[in-house]
């Protein structure tokens, strides 16, 4: 089957694109919150162990699968599994890798619109008005207080920004891999890092902003984030491991269908070992080196510990930080560029979520770019409209994020690493991985990929299910308690949420549709296999 022969124009291009996909709001908002919550030392030990045992190995496996599948003419997760797993059902192993990015896109572009909207509101001074209630502003802007109100189009509303973001994403994705995604990431990633460094310098040179509160200074702000508590005790806490491993897993964008598609546009002679490691390292610099030094110390200096504790990702980013910037000298400028930073981090991620769907439609059904973009645009618009309309308590967004953006990723990543380590075999996988490699991975990773990564990943997944689905309290014996979490109660509890039910129904319908499309595409691949890539 004929399909477009696109490719990255440089090695740095794909590295920046993968890093751009990985760097998102979690780097600047979620990671610092978790590190502060669990105490710098123990959390960072668990975090780096997870980086070595989960992040790097799955990254290598996914890059290798993608490039190998691409050399056989396939670009999408189902297509690549079809090519690699010698079974008529192999293609279905990659189906979730198509569902995840589509569902995540439907709510991620909504969050992206918040960032753009906050940047504009900060620029015109709306976020630094005296007496502004930031919680109320956030609820009004995002529609978190009532369903339907987010469909308004003033500067204080998210509506117009959702439309802008949607059009921007599809414009760039329509331009293709090299002229669209790569061009955006080549400018956006350096700009993002530059802005983060500027904000970092501002935060680290604030000293003691309020002389009346000498304890709230930059050193104590860093201490609040990095001071280790009892490390041995911390490392015995399964919740800490779950938080650290989960953060590594999601921050690197591994295992959900994006990297496998991106790397399919490489040739067999191109390196994946160093490229994957560099993309991971770039993400870590943004997360640990920049995010870890900006958000929490800044919030601590102006609001103290009480202003930070208990804040989630959105609370920290869209309620706490605007207050911080409003009290900071030159705050309007720094608030504006900080939300532009978040917007750049978001758009480089959202773009990556569209490409797997485009690739699947083109290679599975021979659709041309306009048709595939239009079809995917329609599907994602339905999902986004659902999230946009049912904005009360961000219920629709939260439902999508949990069932597709979290749980399904665990499943797809587990499938990926098991197929790599046991399906094709680690020896064969290792050989494929090192074709064209600029550096050699340490041999110990063969053992890690075969035994440690799948075991560790399964352990984290089981822990995640026990905690977030069955509501285990992490106690044993008679003290152990299981109480289904709100995600479960929303579906089958005594007072179910119709929005949550509709959200899960949407994910289920999409999953079944993609299974059907995969079946049909599989017939096309069998009768008219794609021509192998240029190698």
């Amino acid at each position, binding site marked *: 089957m004929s399909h477009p022969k696109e490719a990255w124009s440089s090695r740095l291009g794909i590295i920046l694109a993968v890093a751009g996909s990985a760097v998102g709001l979690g780097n600047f908002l979620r990671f610092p919150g978790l590190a502060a919550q669990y105490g710098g030392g123990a959390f960072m030990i668990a975090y780096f162990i997870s980086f070595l045992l989960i992040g790097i190995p799955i990254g290598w496996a996914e890059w290798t699968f993608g490039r190998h599948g691409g050399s056989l003419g396939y670009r999408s997760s189902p297509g690549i599994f079809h090519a690699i797993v010698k079974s008529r059902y192999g293609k279905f192993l990659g189906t979730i890798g198509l569902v995840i990015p589509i569902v995540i896109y439907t709510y991620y572009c909504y969050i992206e619109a918040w960032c753009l909207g906050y940047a504009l509101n900060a620029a015109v001074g709306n976020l630094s008005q005296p007496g502004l209630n930031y919680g109320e502003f956030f609820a009004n802007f995002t529609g978190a207080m009532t369903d339907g109100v987010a469909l308004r189009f003033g500067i204080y509303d998210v509506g117009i920004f959702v439309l802008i973001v949607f059009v921007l994403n599809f414009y760039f994705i329509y331009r293709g891999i090299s002229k669209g995604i790569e061009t955006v990431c080549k400018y956006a990633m350096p700009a993002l890092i530059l802005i983060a460094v500027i904000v970092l310098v501002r935060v680290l040179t604030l000293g003691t902003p309020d002389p009346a509160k000498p304890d709230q200074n930059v050193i104590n702000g860093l201490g609040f984030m990095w001071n*280790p508590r009892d490390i041995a005790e911390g490392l015995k806490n399964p919740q800490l491991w779950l938080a650290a491993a989960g953060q590594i897993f999601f921050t690197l964008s591994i295992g959900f269908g994006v990297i496998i598609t991106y790397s399919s546009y490489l040739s067999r002679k191109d390196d994946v070992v160093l490229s994957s490691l560099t993309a991971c390292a770039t993400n870590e610099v943004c997360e640990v080196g920049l995010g870890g030094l900006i958000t929490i110390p800044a919030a601590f200096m102006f609001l103290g510990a009480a202003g930070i504790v208990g804040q989630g990702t959105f609370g920290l980013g869209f309620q706490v930080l605007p207050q911080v910037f409003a009290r900071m000298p030159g705050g309007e400028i720094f608030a504006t560029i900080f939300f532009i930073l978040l917007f750049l981090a978001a758009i480089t991620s959202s773009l990556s979520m569209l490409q797997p769907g485009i690739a699947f439609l083109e290679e599975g059904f021979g659709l041309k770019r306009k048709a595939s973009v239009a079809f995917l645009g329609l599907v994602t618009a339905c999902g986004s409209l659902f999230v946009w309309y049912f904005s009360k308590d961000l219920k629709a967004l939260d439902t999508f994020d949990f069932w597709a953006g979290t749980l399904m990723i665990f499943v797809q990543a587990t499938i990926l690493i098991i197929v790599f380590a046991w399906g094709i075999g680690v020896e064969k996988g290792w050989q494929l991985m090192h074709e064209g490699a600029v*550096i050699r991975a340490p041999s110990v990773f063969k053992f890690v990929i075969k035994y440690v990564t799948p075991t560790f990943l399964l352990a984290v997944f089981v822990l995640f299910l026990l905690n977030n689905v069955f509501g285990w309290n992490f106690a044993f014996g008679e003290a152990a308690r299981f109480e289904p979490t709100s995600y479960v109660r929303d579906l089958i509890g005594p007072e179910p949420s119709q929005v949550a039910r509709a959200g899960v129904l949407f994910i289920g319908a999409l999953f079944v549709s993609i299974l059907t499309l995969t079946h049909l595409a599989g017939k096309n691949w069998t009768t008219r296999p794609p021509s192998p890539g240029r190698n």
Partner: protein
Amino acid sequence: MTPGGWISLILSVGGVLTLFSWCIYRVLKAPEREHDLAHIEPQDRAHADE
């Protein structure tokens, strides 16, 4: 900020910066594969980038 906090910060930030610097050095040092990697001309004109 306790000494443990400084150690935690310096090891974490220093570690990722070192890894990143080494990776970028190796990426820039490695030769680009002309005509292989930089193949950007679509073979199928109907699917050409705009």
